[in-house]
């Protein structure tokens, strides 16, 4: 057993990381589905989209060969509508509430149709939006993830000049760095960021990190308002013995490396355990398998009824050959010569519901032991508590507190996205950015 890279041939890597949701191959194929759409009034799909994209309208526009109008409809509500069409868990959002599901019929493939219009718009660089004349106001946005870019775009359309400070060398945030490569390619992420900034009025300064190269007080002084969209980033620690052994890695880092280096350069174990069953856990487990691990086991302390990922995601992991061990919580990681060899888990049972309404796992006293050479921790991400506290931002365990107008306790400093809610979907962050921009526009008046 060993953790090694370069396990597969170039063809295998390409096949394993090719687009998992391929686009419609022809206009005709798209029209068959688009024409199924009933054009619902006050449509359930729209109400189930955090950004309220007018889905019936954009699908109708596909059927009338008004693809530009269709893309405009989507991007007006969600400037990352291209990326969202690839990464949204639509089975629990728009598609999950499509009225066809009430007939036990397959829902309209909304994401796939959305991808049709948005990909074309991005590829062909359609200038769908025009800025209003400059208002001679400057806003600093910290973090070029979905919330930050959405906020920046909304502000710039209204004539506000925006500078975005991004600690990485590329924009897109978790879209670029935190999502399985078979869902969205780095190239697409870059094109999407360029599409957003092509509006003008948005300058992204890369490799600028809040608290290191930029200070909040400077931003407050130099800009008319500040929007914080720094996301979350630190993997939750397991706080169990053996966590520092070689072969223990956090999922965020693992996925970040996959996104930023070539697939062959990423080392992976023979037998990998993934702790947790959120979307990130699925992304880590499936990609470990696709990098050539022979066995991947997902450890989850509750049951399928409580899991945070969707059924679709779970099926994805199962189809990739990942094994799930339900009702098991990591107790100790055992190693030899500083390298992981075993993961010991407590057998759990379900007790009373906790604050989230889900039944809490309770230890049974039994243990199970898995022979593994790699452990990937995906038990959630922690907010940047230290950064937030140092800057005197009111917070709850690191999550920035905002009022109904997206304002922090500091005058002129607004916040939104994962750094406020602790981590939700990309589409939620896009909406947060829109809300933040609206609040900032009101503040600047």
């Amino acid at each position, binding site marked *: 057993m060993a953790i090694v890279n370069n396990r597969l041939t170039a063809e295998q890597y390409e096949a394993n990381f090719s687009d998992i949701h391929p686009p419609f191959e022809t206009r005709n194929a798209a029209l068959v589905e688009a024409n199924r759409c009933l054009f619902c*009034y006050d449509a359930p799909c729209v109400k189930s989209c955090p950004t309220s994209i007018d889905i019936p309208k954009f699908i109708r526009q596909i059927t009338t060969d008004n693809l530009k109008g269709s893309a405009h409809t989507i991007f007006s509500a969600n400037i990352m509508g291209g990326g969202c069409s690839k990464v949204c868990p639509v089975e629990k959002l728009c598609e999950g509430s499509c009225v066809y599901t*009430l*007939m036990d019929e397959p829902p309209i493939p909304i994401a796939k149709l959305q991808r049709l219009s948005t990909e074309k718009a991005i590829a062909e660089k359609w200038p769908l939006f025009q800025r209003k004349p400059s208002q001679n106001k400057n806003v600093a946005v910290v973090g070029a993830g979905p919330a930050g870019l959405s906020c920046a775009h909304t502000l710039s359309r209204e004539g506000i000049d925006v500078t975005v400070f991004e600690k990485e060398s590329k924009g897109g945030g978790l879209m670029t760095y935190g999502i399985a490569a078979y869902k969205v390619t780095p190239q697409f992420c870059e094109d999407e960021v360029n599409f957003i900034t092509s509006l003008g009025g948005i300058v992204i300064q890369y490799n600028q990190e809040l608290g290191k190269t930029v200070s909040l007080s400077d931003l407050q002084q130099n800009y008319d308002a500040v929007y914080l969209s720094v996301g979350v980033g630190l993997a939750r620690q397991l706080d169990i013995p053996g966590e520092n052994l070689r072969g223990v890695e956090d999922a965020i880092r693992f996925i970040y490396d996959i996104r930023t280096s070539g697939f062959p350069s990423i080392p992976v174990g023979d037998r990998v355990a993934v702790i947790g069953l959120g979307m990130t856990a699925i992304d880590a487990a499936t990609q470990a398998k696709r990098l050539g691990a022979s066995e991947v086991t997902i450890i989850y302390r509750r049951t399928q009824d409580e899991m945070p990922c969707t059924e679709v995601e779970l099926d994805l992991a199962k189809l990739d050959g990942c094994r799930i061990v339900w009702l098991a919580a990591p107790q100790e990681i055992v190693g030899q010569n500083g390298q992981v060899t075993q993961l010991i888990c407590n057998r759990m049972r379900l007790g009373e519901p906790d604050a989230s309404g889900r039944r809490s796992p309770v230890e049974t006293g039994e243990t199970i032991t898995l022979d593994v050479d790699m452990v990937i921790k995906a038990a959630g991400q922690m907010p940047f508590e230290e950064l937030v506290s140092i800057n005197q931002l009111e917070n709850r365990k690191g999550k920035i507190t905002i009022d109904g107008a997206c304002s922090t306790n500091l005058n002129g400093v607004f916040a939104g996205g994962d750094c406020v809610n602790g981590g939700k979907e990309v589409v939620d962050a896009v909406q947060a950015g829109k809300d933040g921009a609206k609040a900032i526009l009101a503040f600047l008046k």
Partner: protein
Amino acid sequence: MADLSANFLGIKSPNPYWLASAPPTDKQYNVLRAFEAGWGGVVWKTLGSQIKNVSSRYSSVNYNGNRMMGFNNIELISDRPLDINLREIAECVRLFPDRAMVVSLMADNSREKWHELIAQVEDTGAHGLELNFGCPHGMTERGMGAAVGQDPDIARMVVEWVMEKATIPVITKLTPNVHSVVPSGRASVEGGTNGLSLINTIQSITGVDLDTLVPNPYVAGKSVFGGYCGPAVKPVALKMLTTLSQDPVTSRVPISGIGGISTWKDAAEFMLLGATTVQVCTAVMKHGFRIIEDLCEGLSNWMDDKGFQTTDDFIGKSVPTITHWEDLDINYHIVAHINPDKCIRCGLCYIACEDASHQSINLAYGKPYNTYSIIEDKCVGCNLCKLVCPVDNCITMVEQRKGDDYLNWKEFQRRGLPLNDH
């Protein structure tokens, strides 16, 4: 098993389905294959003087992904030499003596030309003639086709010429490009025609190409009005057919119904409104001869279900139910009812009623699913919600009469009853 056989003026066919005079019936090769597939008869594509066709010839109207909802053509009568046509007709009659062979004719405008053509066609052994008084393009400019059918006096005169010579049954095919088909129909019957058929195609432009800005079909940068047919024209054809069935003169002769017939249901509807046989073209141009199987099986099963043993049992049966508006019962009142168990919360009924009818559907907000219900005292029973609802039998119209007695508009006015107060 129901008996599907038809007898139209003594022209017998094993079923009431004839192929209309059109490209599928212009040669022996096609007609034999149609007969092998099971078609009851054909009306051979119109014979007349020599013509030349152009390219392209067809265009269509698509709707929400369905192709050829409507179809038009600018093709003329047969462009094949007359002697070849006559030889092939004779051969088809010889090979399939049990099928109806009617030949469509459009002679030049003289008694002699008509007589000459009729004599030649009768020599083939064909069972009947159909006079093409309906072709709306190309031939009309030469004073033929619809130019004859649009003027009752000319129609009567030409029918008279034909009847002087013809020894086999004559069907006159009427054009729909008139305000009413009845005057030409009456003139034709008065001129002696044995039967009528309708409708021929409707003059049309199916659309304009938004790149070239030239209407369809495109011929070297130009287009012309074409003849419209296919499923889109069925309602127009049914109405025109019914006016012939209601008229005391035209209803004296049998009618062959034409216009958008694609399924056995369409055929049953034409026959219920007075057609003895039906003619099909566009559906075959789209799908081929093979559709004859379901046309026959579906009609037969329906007849069994309804207890009809022969087609005569139901031909014309629906005609008496078409009345005058002023004879409709005003006391008949229905209101919509939404079955909440079937409702899929699409809101289509709500927005249709709200924007286009009587604001009689209530929306109870829900996330993501609203609940819709009928405000009964505002509902006028227009059917719109039921028509837009994508779920069968989810919205039903429930009878709630305004009064027990039959009350028509004339009586309503005589009694001085009040108009709506909203």
